[in-house]
């Protein structure tokens, strides 16, 4: 609801549908929020052993502020700086996590992928930055706003990365609950739909919108399932201080909602172009 209010333009505006720009800002905001919650907690679990571990949550907070500024119509230099830092930090994070995985003994093995630093997670921060920049009209000097295909493509790639991460971690959880397949199947179809949309614009508008809607729902739904997952650990929610850390990550699923909003932005942009 809150989200709905945020992405729908202020009262009095003629068009009821949110603009691509608002959608992109909202996507950036949600992705930053997800990274802020997830890396904040996971790095806390890692006791912030390395100072660099403060960087991701800090930049995610800055990105969130930038997106919020954009949503309330206060664009400017600072948000763009935040978005650029998010892109750089996200990419550096991917490298950092990968290095972390490699330095354990032996060749890269499944157990290291399961329990090492998640190689793909920081990419969400980079995506938050990219969508923020797209919303602000930066980085696409010749076309402002960005072309729909570009947004569709970036979103599809983002979904692909997210799916790979979820597939790995749910595999680690042995798909012990059948619903653990949902965040692979639904966003998988949505990503395929976005690629098709980029190739053959306007062909599957309705179906793609439903798939993106379902992907957006995965955010809150995933949080509900992950809360249930936390409750299944020894001591349940009464022992939240341990189980929120050792159970499934509560803040991770909203990244799907964030990506779905970017997908909606791609659709809206296409519709404006057509």
């Amino acid at each position: 609801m809150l989200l709905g209010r945020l992405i729908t333009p202020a009262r009095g505006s003629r068009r009821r549908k949110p603009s691509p720009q608002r959608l992109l800002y909202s996507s950036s905001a949600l992705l930053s929020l997800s990274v802020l919650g997830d890396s904040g907690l996971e790095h806390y679990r890692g006791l912030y052993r390395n100072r660099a571990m403060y960087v991701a949550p800090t930049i995610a907070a800055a990105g969130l502020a930038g997106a919020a500024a954009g949503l309330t119509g206060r664009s400017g230099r600072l948000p763009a700086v935040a978005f650029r830092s998010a892109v750089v930090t996200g990419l550096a994070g991917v490298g950092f996590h990968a290095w972390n995985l490699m330095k354990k003994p032996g060749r890269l093995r499944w157990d290291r992928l399961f329990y090492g630093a998640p190689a793909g997670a920081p990419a969400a921060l980079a995506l938050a930055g990219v969508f923020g920049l797209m919303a602000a009209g930066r980085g696409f000097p010749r076309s402002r706003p960005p072309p729909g295909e570009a947004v569709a493509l970036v979103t599809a790639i983002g979904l692909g990365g997210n799916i790979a991460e979820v597939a790995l971690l749910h595999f680690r959880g042995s798909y012990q609950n059948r619903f653990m397949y949902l965040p692979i199947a639904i966003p998988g179809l949505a990503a395929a739909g976005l690629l098709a949309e980029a190739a053959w614009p306007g062909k599957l508008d309705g179906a793609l919108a439903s798939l993106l809607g379902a992907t957006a729902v995965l955010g809150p739904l995933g949080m509900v399932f992950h809360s249930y997952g936390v409750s299944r650990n020894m001591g349940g929610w009464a022992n939240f201080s341990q189980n929120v850390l050792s159970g499934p990550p509560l803040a991770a699923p909203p990244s799907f909602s964030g990506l779905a909003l970017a997908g909606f932005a791609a659709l809206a942009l296409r519709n404006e172009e057509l």
Partner: protein
Amino acid sequence: MPDRPRARDGQAPDVFRRGGWVPMRMFRDDEAVDFLIVGTGAGGGTLACALAERGFSVVALDAGPFWRPLEDFASDETEQAKLYWRDERISGGEDPISFGSNNSGKAVGGSTVHFQMVSLRFRPEWLKARSLLGYARDWPIAWPEIEPYYEQVEEALKISGPVDFPWGPPRKRYPYRPHPVNAAGLVLARGAEALGISWAPTPLATVSAPRGMAHPCVYRGFCKFGCSTNAKQSALTVWIPRAIQAGAEIRDLAMAGRVEIGGDGLVTGVVYHREGEWRRQRARNVVVAGYSVETPRLLLNSACPAFPDGLANSSGMVGKYLMTHANHAVWGTMDEEIRWNKGPPSLALTEHWNYADDGKDFDGGYAIMSQGPMPAEWANSVAVKHGVWGIALRNRMMLYNRMAGLKIVGETLPQESNRVELAEEEDEYGLPIAKVTYGNCDNDKRLAAHSIRFMTDMMHAAGARDSWSEGGTAHLMGGCRMGDDERDSVTDSDGRTWDIPNLWICDGSLFPTAGGVNPSLTIQALALRIGDRMAALAARGELAGRRGRPSVTGR
């Protein structure tokens, strides 16, 4: 310690709920049940489930109590000694075995209530050790006959194991993913890689993700002292609840004293002690599953005019060829903090010397596992095995969080002189206690020496500052071995005794050889196979009270 049985009046403890109960079917003592099982551990508990789920009437007795892990298990090593079989036994010979916490449980669920959950399959060739590898003895069953049952057990226990296991024939993926390898396991990993051999996260019977009412492992490392989260997949939390649900009756605090024989030379039931009195449960078949010391003891204690040397003992093999595993260790001090008690004690292993046949000066094999003894256990081992005491012990304990170590599970060879007999002394029930005689042969000593050399190299390659070694044993196997020939074995390949067709054995005492892996997975696979065989025999009318006369048909 509960002084009164809990499984009574039509209900049994619910292991998954504090103070909870589940309904349980009850049988009268004078009602001849299809199967009466003595012992509810890896062998008996598994078989009770297999038979009850096939519609046979089953009563299973256990001398130990029926625990609810969530409320009965304390995070206290001393308190948890209540899980062990501590009744007196006499242990002698050149290399006496230590009992109690080392290898014997006394509880519904048996030794699996405090086992360390390492769940490994035999190397296929070991089943034909004599024919294929040239030592010891062949089992009466071949790999294809047991492999499907290994898979069933792994599925039933949701074993958490590596995605690709480096040793053995191609296998189905373990049902659950491996646990994270702790720092103690990474020491093994570093050592293995420095010496150029493979290692893997250990396949364990504790869940790495939720399973039904079982919580995922919390890595506190109390496994050997009873798991209070139910992450551990023991007979108590897996087979027993299923058995009860399928209609089996479990009787806790019920000590079997004698298997009774009728005039026709067949078993008629078991005399057992419960709630202060001796009672007699009638049965068409009796299965003894009390493990390698208590199974032979019960058979020997049941001697009668028709079988003066003990039941099923015409071969003289009851109590003979007892085996244990060599459990030698190398310890070392690391520069970095290890905190080896965190997590199940053996999170990484190498089976290199189980599968490599070159470079050995001994027959058999051994697996090496990372270690994580709890503080009191460690202090005890340092004080007793190395005589460190006073300020020296205190200083040693100050290094607890920087210690690491490796231990083997090493195959010992079966020897007739390693045996269980009856002593003159009697226990609280007036039953003669067991006297165990044990000694290592030259091959056992060569294996141990090889392992200590190798583990010392591994520890130093992994960065240990210093190292020292010690001997030890773990697990029991044999004592009522199965075989192809009734002249030198107690049972056939179905666990059916050669002498008495309705008397069976289903536990670790059936092993003709020990193998270089922990035994419980193989015991459970054997139990499932025996259950299948019993059902097949029943269907063919060959599960006779007397040969040729069907008395049990199941569902």
